[in-house]
């Protein structure tokens, strides 16, 4: 077993295991800190897809921004409110059994469908890429490609996302501003 494969499975187990723990832990603070491990393991999995830029963005945006905001919100919120939130029934699903059963069967169906549809052989576009030597290697400068693609092929979605983020920023500053009319 080579190191790459070992690392991949280690990251995958870490991601799935800690994600399960995040939803089942009763201690919200610990669950939030464990969420960091999930995000970190996900970033590791992105690296295996040669998406190093996405991996680092994941850490920067989610760990540096979203997770810290979540922790802040948790630490500054009311203690009684948190106690209400923390009173779970103890079982993984708090629905009655007859409701859970179709849900579980539905997910099982999706998984079986996925396994049936999954083709073991390499897709055609992959084999042609290998033949034409146009495969992206881990040492290639992916950011350069990404920048060119963002500014040419995907310029409209890129601009729409920036406008959307701008709207969110303006909305946030509007909500947090003190009402001067009073």
């Amino acid at each position, binding site marked *: 077993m080579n190191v790459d494969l070992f690392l991949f499975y280690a990251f995958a187990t870490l991601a799935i295991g800690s994600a399960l723990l995040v939803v089942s832990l009763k201690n919200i603070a*610990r669950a939030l800190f464990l969420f960091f491990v999930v995000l970190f393991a996900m970033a590791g999995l992105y690296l295996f897809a040669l998406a190093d*830029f996405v991996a680092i963005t994941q*850490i920067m945006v989610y760990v540096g921004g979203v997770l810290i905001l979540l922790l802040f919100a948790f630490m500054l919120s009311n203690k009684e409110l948190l106690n209400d939130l923390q009173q779970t029934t103890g079982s993984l699903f708090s629905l009655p059994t007859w409701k859970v059963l179709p849900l579980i069967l539905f997910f099982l169906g999706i998984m079986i469908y996925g396994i049936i549809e999954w083709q073991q052989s390499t897709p055609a576009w992959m084999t042609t890429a290998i033949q034409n030597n146009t495969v992206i290697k881990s040492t290639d400068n992916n*950011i350069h490609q990404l920048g060119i693609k963002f500014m040419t092929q995907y310029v409209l979605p890129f601009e729409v996302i920036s406008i959307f983020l701008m709207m969110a920023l303006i909305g946030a500053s509007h909500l947090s501003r003190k009402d001067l009319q009073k």
Partner: protein
Amino acid sequence: MLDLFIHILVPVAIFTFIAIFTLFAVYAERKIAGFVQDRLGPMETGKYGSLQTIADILKLLQKELITPLLADKILFRLAPIIIFVAVFTGFSVMPWSQDFIPVNTHTGLFLIMAIVSIDAIGILMAGWGSNNKFSLLGSMRAIAQMVSYEIPVGLSLIAAVMLTQTLNLNDIATNQGVLATEEIKFLGVWSIKNVGGIFAWNIFQAPHMIVTYIIFFIATLAECNRAPFDIPEAESELVGGFHTEYGGIQFAFLFLAEYAMMFLVSMLGVVIFLGAWNTPLPNMGALKLANWTTGFAWGIFWTFSKSLFLVGVQMWIRWTLPRLRADQLMNLCWKVLTPLAFLCMAISAIWRILVIV
């Protein structure tokens, strides 16, 4: 097998460097503090107190690890490790000399910016895990400060990266001296590629880069929670901030992380703005000073001495300036540094399009 050996050797070497650097930096800090405040500093242990920090670290290593009764034990124990590992990982992409870099990756600079945010999580973890109001308040202040100051740091780095056109720290370093692979110009007018020296540094590539560097320096000072931005651990108000409850080797690791962070941001400033491992001496006619003082050992020497100089400046500032109030801190960040950094970024974009190309 050799590959594996190198993979183990490099982190050990970096760790040893951080440990030794911290030992000497703490001694230097106390001596500088003594000099600024017109006293002698440590004088008892060893000649001129030179063994003082070694005695201190021996004391810390012997101490019992005390965990508060009501602390969240897992988070409390993990926090110093996360804080230290975060800073430690940052060193993995820093170039020391020409092509002498632990990991030569195209996303080096971006990685360092992400690493700093992991540091913030560790501080929050320490503050919450201690179950102490001073710790929690200290870590809250630390996070508010670090998250805010990440913006001017990021923007000033973007302003620099817009000119260099790469996030690869090795390439950024190479293009600031006589070994540059691209055309470089002093203030956009004087082609400097064969002259090198101080004029080829990024800080002199465009007139606004000096302002950008000053923004970067002030903001990174706040990122490492150093005075005058040390309200997270303000002794007079908060006991010790987020590390109030820590003792023994855990405290030693927090301390190690703080000094490693100081060196990391100084080195980052050196690599991005101050010529990395390139010499400050230019070629002058027959006097090929830049060519003579460029090489593998010279590279390490220049990186090291420039970074140490900046660490020295950080210490000098710490003992000279009084601490900023929380509101002054936020005002400085959001109303002065961030707009200025935005302006620098805009100038960089125009400069790149109109002057360089």
